[in-house]
């Protein structure tokens, strides 16, 4: 440095000599070394793999997805049989993963919010019970919990077999699954569904309108109750207008098993319970931390302004707590989705289970594992992108 500052006027500054210990040179050197190592290792592994695949007579490529699978899948949301392709079997598995993950996320959120609020309750007993719930369930592996639920359900000591089961309002809870009545197809039910969709949309529109009016004029509107009324009344009215059907398919004992009506398999219940209960303990802890993160002064100030407790909760505590809660909550949702892959241990046909069966049948390990990874990576990255968008939006609101 000194030779640059002390240079005589008029002479061109001499370029500093770039030796091996120069920072930039070092940076480039190390990057080249690391890249070379990574690429070299990669090439070596690929070469080995090629040789190994050749000696084992395994043909690479995803062509096998178009071939007939030849295996049955216990439960499916779309029509599927052993005559369908491997590709369709994977789709069935993927839909099953989404099925259990979506319901699990919804239930875990509800349960977790209750547990989180409960652990902050002024009621000593409730606070102790919820704290015990959180501590115990967080510290036992989720895989063990899923297997425990499953072995509880299929064990004749805890649940009756189909022939011994007593109906409970037309429903049966047996070790072969949970059976319940389903409505017979009728346009009235369809109309009810449409009514529900319209009701939700209308409630949302009313809420927006009420919020804007209050911001402009200061006049409040009971948007919550109006919305609740719309969501309940519209489907009922539509259902009644189209003939008010009440016919149900009732589950009945047929021979050795129960048929008719709807059925939820023990595998699905076990995975759903395991994931929901485990994740709800984590969500409870997140909700608790989020509520505690709101400074006490905020609530005291709101009280000093004369706001009612319900308004304080909705307008002061929750918006601030949510900013802390949402990011870790999203990662819990992702964890739940990833943990649904543990279904393979008890035979619920999720994506990983189906892919695993295909790997065992075809020997296409690389293809099978890459498909699972790509699917889960897409879900993770999509969620991360959504999260970033949400965080940006929240920050704009803040400033």
């Amino acid at each position: 440095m000194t030779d640059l500052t002390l240079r005589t006027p008029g002479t061109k500054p001499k370029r500093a000599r770039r030796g091996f210990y120069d920072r930039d040179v070092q940076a480039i050197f190390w990057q080249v070394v690391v890249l070379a190592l990574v690429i070299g290792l990669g090439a070596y592994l690929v070469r080995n793999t090629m040789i190994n695949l050749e000696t084992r007579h395994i043909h690479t490529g995803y062509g096998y997805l178009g071939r007939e699978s030849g295996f049955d899948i216990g439960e499916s949301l779309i029509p599927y049989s052993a005559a369908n392709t491997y590709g369709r079997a994977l789709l069935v598995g993927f839909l099953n993963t989404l099925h259990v993950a979506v319901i699990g996320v919804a239930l875990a959120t509800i349960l977790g919010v209750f547990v989180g609020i409960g652990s902050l309750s002024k009621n000593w007993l409730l606070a102790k019970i919820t704290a015990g719930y959180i501590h115990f369930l967080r510290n036992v592996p989720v895989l063990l919990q899923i297997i425990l639920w499953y072995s509880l359900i299929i064990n004749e000591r805890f649940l009756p077999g189909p022939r011994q089961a007593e109906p409970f309002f037309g429903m049966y809870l047996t070790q072969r699954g949970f059976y319940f009545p389903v409505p017979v197809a009728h346009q009235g039910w369809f109309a009810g569904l449409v009514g529900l969709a319209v009701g939700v949309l209308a409630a949302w529109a009313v809420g927006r309108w009420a919020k804007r009016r209050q911001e402009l004029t200061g006049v409040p509107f009971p948007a919550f109750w109006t919305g609740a009324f719309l969501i309940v009344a519209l489907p009922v009215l539509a259902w009644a207008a189209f003939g008010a059907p009440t016919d149900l398919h009732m589950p009945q004992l047929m021979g050795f098993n129960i048929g008719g009506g709807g059925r939820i398999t023990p595998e699905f219940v076990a995975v759903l319970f395991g994931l929901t209960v485990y994740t709800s303990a984590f969500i409870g802890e997140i909700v608790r931390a989020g509520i505690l993160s709101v400074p006490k002064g905020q609530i005291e100030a709101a009280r000093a302004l004369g706001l009612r407790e319900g308004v304080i909760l909705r307008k002061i505590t929750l918006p601030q707590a949510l900013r802390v809660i949402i990011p870790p909550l999203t990662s819990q949702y992702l964890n739940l989705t990833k943990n649904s892959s543990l279904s393979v241990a008890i035979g619920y046909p999720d994506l990983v289970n189906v892919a695993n069966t295909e790997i065992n049948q075809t020997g296409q390990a690389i293809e099978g594992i890459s498909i699972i990874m790509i699917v889960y990576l897409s879900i993770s990255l999509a969620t991360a992108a959504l999260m970033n968008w949400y965080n940006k939006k929240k920050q704009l609101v803040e400033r």
Partner: protein
Amino acid sequence: MRAASRISPIDWVRANLFNSWLNGALTVVLVAFLAWLLPKLYAWAVTDAVFAPDSNACRTADGACWGFLVEKLRLIMFGTYPYTEQWRPLATVILLLTLIGFTMNPRLWSRWLWISWLVGVLVMWILMNGGVFGLPEVETDRWGGLPLTLILAVNGIVFSFPLAILLALGRRSDMPAIKAICIAFIELVRGVPLITVLFMASLMIPLFLPEGITIDKLLRAQIAFILFAAAYEAEVVRGGLQAIPKGQFEAADALGLSYWQKTGFIILPQALRVVIPPMVNTFIGFFKDTSLVIIIGMFDLLGATRLASSDPVWRPYYVEGLVFVALIYFAFCFTMAEYSRWVERRLNTATR
């Protein structure tokens, strides 16, 4: 006790259980629920339970069959390790727990701890594997039960930690190529379920290796766990690095320290101290995750329990085995969680 002398029990009940109408109703409902549940649970677990290893008595009993545990305890705890040699895994577990106990005490953090770990690992390897000092050799595929769970977890934590630090530093590096590699690795591993990483280890590592070279299953699973844990720990370390004020970096640069001097003597000691509590939480998660080796056919604590209940006579009592194993996991994880809280409090008082 001092509080009790000032507040009478009735006041306490009024303040903590019946301080409003809603809370009063809640208390009544909860007490009713507990009054229904607890006697049932107690009857199942104690009064109606069978404690003797007698499967006939179990079949007629209404309650739990703890006799299953008595009968299969050594299978559950040590897997298929040769019966007469089972003092060796027992000694390993005791040694490991002693070392962990010492490590948890910050006053003992010194060079000697590193040395005792090195010696300890060597002794444990000799104990488990044998083949020297007249100990019969035991192949790794016969290892099982609690020692296997602990070995997977401890080795995973010990070896993933340095890797995690490198990954975290790499992710914050100015060098684009290194940064890209680290980000790609971390996000790839964190984006997929652990089970796919284990499948890769059990199905794909054999394909990656040149012909004639095989790695045993335990080592393959161990490698998968190390890589998996490193990615998660790297993010925790990164959190610690981000918490270091910029002035620390600038001051180190101003002193003319090299990158490794700056990182090793200024940045990491502060960053790692901050992340001890979240790091312990990551360790807890990782300890629980070792149970996944059951899916690739290894007999850890959970796998050995399933093996024990595959005996047709005892098949219905898998539930009791799972409850027992759940309590073991809980004991370990809860201890770690409490430790993390204790360290957190200690750190807080130290910085004040």
